[in-house]
């Protein structure tokens, strides 16, 4: 009843091509933006900001990056964490070695470095496909962290190889408190998400999808496969690189190369599988599912046990949490193999008819 587009006429191409063609969606997005920009800073505690919201934003961005490559261009990659590491370390080094460089420029250069590295590791995709390509990107996942540890120049000869990041300062304003870091991450992620959404709706995105759906057919209709695939790798790695830089500068405040391991790559892959392959919204939903659910289960189990007066052995909650988490992933994949984004779409279609489905 509330969610009906009856009476909303589109009289120009512009109106027809909006990201959110339905008025209610636009209002919804405005409300969401308002909550994120004003509501959250008013009510969120430090715990919520540093432990939940900032990582959520960072992983959403990384998931968008992987979704561009895997979801839209159809190239399976297991090197996401490695490209994040490149972005983080490159941003740190630009900030360290170029005197007076603005941090946002460092971020862009860091993302650019990741894009270049991503394009190089994307070269095998021109010859091999599917699972074989996944194995080739696995090489990036092993090679890059190894290189970053091996050559101590990257970490400015830090004895333990762990880097502490510089403060984020824009026009004399320092983003040092959790709230400021959250706002910084929010703005970066929102802008990049908007760019990504428009990118996949443009001719580039259509070329990606054509290659994904059938590369021979795409070639026949005049899409240059080589360029399309490499652009996909570069753009995807750029997003991952910026996500890595945010991970270091806005979230942890340090870069530990060992943290960007295969495990993280898999987590981001799971995010897009659960959230929805080939969907920007799905990247956010998947990141939320994978980052928040374990914390939620952990808190619920610990508090539940305390409330019931049970003394659970430590480590037990962690085990239970892993079991429940695994079961929930299977549950969602059975209920909706196309991901949470598809679930949301179905809900919207039902809402249009509600409460009179006949």
């Amino acid at each position: 009843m509330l969610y009906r587009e009856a009476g909303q006429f589109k009289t120009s191409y512009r109106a027809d091509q909006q990201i959110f063609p339905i008025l209610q969606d636009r209002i919804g997005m405005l409300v969401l933006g308002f909550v994120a920009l004003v509501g959250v800073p008013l009510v969120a505690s430090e715990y919520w900001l540093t432990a939940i919201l900032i990582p959520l934003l960072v992983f959403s961005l990384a998931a968008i990056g992987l979704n561009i490559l895997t979801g839209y261009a159809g190239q399976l990659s297991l090197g996401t964490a490695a490209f994040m590491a490149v972005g983080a370390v490159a941003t740190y080094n630009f900030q360290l070695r170029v005197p007076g460089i603005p941090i946002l420029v460092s971020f862009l250069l860091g993302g650019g470095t990741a894009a270049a590295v991503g394009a190089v590791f994307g070269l095998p995709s021109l010859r091999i496909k599917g699972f074989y390509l996944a194995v080739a990107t696995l090489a990036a996942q092993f090679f890059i962290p190894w290189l970053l540890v091996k050559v101590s120049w990257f970490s400015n000869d830090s004895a333990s190889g762990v880097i502490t990041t510089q403060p984020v300062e824009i026009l004399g304003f320092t983003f040092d408190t959790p709230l400021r870091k959250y706002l910084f991450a929010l703005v970066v992620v929102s802008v990049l998400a908007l760019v990504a959404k428009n990118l996949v709706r443009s001719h580039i995105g259509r070329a990606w999808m054509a290659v994904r759906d059938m590369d021979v057919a795409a070639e026949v209709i005049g899409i240059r496969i080589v360029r399309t695939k490499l652009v996909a790798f570069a753009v995807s790695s750029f997003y991952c690189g910026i996500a890595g830089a945010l991970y270091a500068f806005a979230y942890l405040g340090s870069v530990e190369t060992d943290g960007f391991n295969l495990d993280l790559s898999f987590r981001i892959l799971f995010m897009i599988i659960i959230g929805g392959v080939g969907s920007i919204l799905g990247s956010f939903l998947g990141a939320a599912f994978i980052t928040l659910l374990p914390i939620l289960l952990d808190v619920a189990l610990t508090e539940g046990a305390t409330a019931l007066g049970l003394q659970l052995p430590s480590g037990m909650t962690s085990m239970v949490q892993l079991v429940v988490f695994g079961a929930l992933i299977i549950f969602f994949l059975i209920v909706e193999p196309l991901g949470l984004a598809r679930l949301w779409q179905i809900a919207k279609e039902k809402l249009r008819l509600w409460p009179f489905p006949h």
Partner: protein
Amino acid sequence: MAWKKTALAWIAGLTLAAGSLTAVAQQAGTQFVGITGYRVGPYGANGAAFFGGFTDYLQLVNARDGGINGVKLSWEECETEYNTAKGVECYERLKARADTGPTAIHPMSTGITYALLDKAPADQVPLITFGYGRTDATDGRVFPWVFPLMSNYWDAATAIIKFIADKEGGEGGLKGKKIVLLYHDSAYGKEPHAVLEAEAKRRGFDLEMIPVPHPGNEQQSQWLQIRRIRPDWVILWGWGVMNATAIQTAQKVGFPRDRMVGNWWAGSEIDTEAAGPAAKGYYAASLNLAGKKFPVVQDIEKIVYGKLNVGGDPKLIGTVLWNRGVAAAMFTLEAVRTAQAKYGKKPMNGAQVRWGLEHLDLSAKRLQKLGFGAMLPPIKVSCENHGGSGEVRFQQWDGSAWQAASDWMKGDSALVHRMIEESAAKYAAEKGIKPACLGG
């Protein structure tokens, strides 16, 4: 599809519940100790021993002494799985649990230590990094909130060289000898390189450094290389499965184990028992002695495991890492006790605990009284030196247990001190910190 709806409703309900649950307070009037521990994941076995000892000591102090000066202890352990992101989440959660904060955090992971390095001063939470973490944090003027208590990696490296020199006939005995460093190819394994190179130059021995890629369960080529070099000694700087493999492969290529010295992460029962009889004679530097002969260990066994029956796995009692956990808990509590002498007998907040840590003075007599006896060397912390003694003790595996093989000894502390100051000054310049001592 009713079950689908039910499940979705459940998830929605849980989400709401968790939001309201995150701010449950501690029991009023207790000293709340936040523990970021790990008992599952790749290093779960190590964590289970360390944090088992840690909580057992807290149990003991509550049951035997009724807390510290009448202030009872409460605690909560949050599972990090040795994962940095999870560690930060745990830290934030525990920090908000009590008005006085989490007392002091033992991150027990290099990654988590670094991630908390900037947060801790802002939140006024002291960090205790007992035998790991950032070595130059020993300079308390640059790192007022970090306490790498007892010894750091550089102390260990120079002490190992001194131990070897003593075996080779004293100060000049190493001239012309060959020493191989077999290290875990990671940031951790590269930590001693600079110090060892400086030592090699000063003492005139040949140093060869051979990396072992993670996880290190295959070392045939490295040991063939060692056999070609024919070193007089091998220093093992390993972690996890790499240690046992190194000891076994040494036996296979016929290298004497009593010419191998490990650091303290290569010197626990987990390493030597996995290596079997090959480990007999192997030396390792240690932060603390293993064994059950110390009164505090016996008290825990009697009270926590016997009378109260709330202890963990009794097999872990008296192992190297378990004893280290007991010692770590003792450091935290003694810092609270020291702070109470100044601020009164009530729960201490982070700033007060920090003051207590900086004025921690555990003399041999005090350690005796606490029941630790010879398990640890005396420690005196000051603003300039957040580490303490810098002493380690060597142990030798006799085939079934670790036996002390030296007294508490120091390496080249002048060299270590100089390097720490250089490194800390570099960090201070990078970060714009003006080195100064914090007062009470």
